[in-house]
C-alpha cells in the first residue's frame, strides 16, 4: 500500500532563518507531488507541483521554493523565512493520471 510521510509535524522558526520541509511517498512510482499551504480557517492553496524528478511548477510567486531530487521525495525550502510564511503546509501525491490526492499529516510552521 502507498503511504506518505511528512516531517516535522510542528516547527517554530525565527524570521530570516532557512526552511526545509520534507515529504516522501512509499509504495508507488512516478507520483505527481504537491505542496499546499493552508492559512488558519482557510482552504488549501497550491504552491508547487511536480510531475517528475527535477520538474517543478510554481503556482504563486512567493518566498518559497521546491525541489524533487528523487522520484518519491519532495522538499519545500526557503532561504529566509518571513512572518507571512506561517501556516499549515501539506504535501500530497496523486497517481500519474492525477485524480485523487492523498495527503500527508501536515507541518504546522510558525515564524516568530
Amino acid at each position, binding site marked *: 500500500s502507498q503511504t506518505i510521510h511528512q516531517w516535522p509535524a510542528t516547527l517554530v522558526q525565527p524570521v530570516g532563518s532557512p526552511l526545509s520541509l520534507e515529504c516522501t511517498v512509499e509504495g508507488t512510482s512516478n507520483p505527481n507531488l504537491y505542496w499546499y499551504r493552508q492559512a488558519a480557517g482557510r482552504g488549501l492553496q497550491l504552491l508547487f507541483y511536480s510531475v517528475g524528478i527535477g520538474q517543478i511548477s510554481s503556482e504563486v510567486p512567493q518566498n518559497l521554493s521546491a525541489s524533487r531530487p528523487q522520484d518519491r521525495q519532495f522538499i519545500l525550502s526557503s532561504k529566509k523565512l518571513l512572518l507571512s510564511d506561517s501556516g499549515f503546509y501539506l504535501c500530497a501525491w496523486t497517481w500519474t493520471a*492525477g485524480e485523487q490526492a492523498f495527503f500527508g499529516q501536515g507541518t504546522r510552521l510558525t515564524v516568530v
Partner: protein
Amino acid sequence: GESVGLHLPTLSVQEGDNSIINCAYSNSASDYFIWYKQESGKGPQFIIDIRSNMDKRQGQRVTVLLNKTVKHLSLQIAATQPGDSAVYFCAENLKSSGSARQLTFGSGTQLTV
C-alpha cells in the same frame, strides 16, 4: 480565474440528523470532484468522489450529488455523529496545460455535531 467555493462556512447539526454541505464550482470543464474531510491539525482525508458523467454516488453514510446544469455539488451525511465534526472541502480536478492534474479546493465548511 476559475474557483471552487462553498455556500456556508459553518454548519451545526444535532447528532442523528442528516447533514448537507454544498459546493459551487465555476469551471464547466471540470470532470472530477472530490469531497475531503479534515480534522483539526491533520491532513485532508478522502471521503467520496464523483465524475461528471454521474449525478449521484453513494458511500457508507455519505452521498454526493452533482448538478452540472448549475455547477453545484453537495455532500449528504446520514445520521451525523460527533466523529463527523470536521472541516469538509470540495475539490475539482482541472486539466492543466501539462500532464499533471491539479486539484482546486474550496474554502471549506466547518461541520459541528
